């Protein structure tokens, strides 16, 4: 009787750790990013700091996580003509090549090496996140139409 209870509890625990918590993290992150808050790094941090997912797997999941949302957004942007083709033509080939290099490095070296750079990256993101408020006070001529958000 007692054994059964324990195994049920444990099964519940495994379910929570491997399914429920990941599901809830994905759910919450996605809601926030739909509101324009957060984006990818939030999920990444939840995974590595609280769910004990190892850094590399977390990074991979984070990349996958972005794809469906971005695809939906792109369809919308495409229809509204918001995609700037000259910029895409310049940026995409270079971006793809350097992404391959970056991903290659991340999967080749000991991830511990990347901890400090990632920490700096996070701090910089935090600063940048709060930065645009100041930018609004002194619009540089061209961006005088800035009534969004």
């Amino acid at each position, binding site marked *: 009787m007692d054994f059964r209870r324990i195994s049920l509890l444990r099964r519940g625990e495994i379910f929570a750790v491997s399914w429920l918590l990941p599901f809830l993290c994905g759910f919450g992150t996605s809601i926030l990013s739909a509101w324009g808050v957060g984006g990818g790094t939030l999920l990444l941090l939840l995974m590595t700091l609280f769910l004990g997912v190892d850094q590399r797997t977390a990074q991979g999941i984070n990349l996958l996580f972005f*794809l469906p*949302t971005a695809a939906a957004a792109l369809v919308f942007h495409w229809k509204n003509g918001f995609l700037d083709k000259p910029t895409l033509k310049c940026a995409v080939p270079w*971006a793809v090549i350097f992404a391959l290099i*970056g*991903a290659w490095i991340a*999967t080749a070296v000991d991830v511990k090496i990347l901890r400090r750079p990632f920490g700096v990256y996070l701090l910089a993101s935090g600063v940048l996140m709060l930065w645009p408020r100041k930018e609004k006070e002194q619009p540089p001529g061209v961006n005088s139409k800035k009534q969004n958000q």
Partner: protein
Amino acid sequence: MDEKWRGRIAGAGAGLGNGLFGGGGGMVFIPVMSRSSLKRQKLYATCVGVIFPVCAVSAAVYFWRAELTIKTALPYLLGGLIGGLVGGRLYGKMPARWLKWIFAGFLFYGGVKYLL
């Protein structure tokens, strides 16, 4: 700076950062490109257009070379899908400003944790 080279450098930086850290390429792309002639709305949309292929090829590399499997990613993806639908419905009904502050605080917390 030449607009073409600005685009290439922004793309390269975003690609490298995104591939290395598994996200956040937009955080490189937007600041570099914000000095170009692109309007804000186009800038953010174009950023997604650059990051999408970047994430796709990086994810492929992680699949190929790291311990990533669909099974571990699935609960996150399902949650994300449903969260996206719910978030879209609730859009504009929540004050995004203080959420932004909480999130920035969380980023600082994470940054310090990673540095220590």
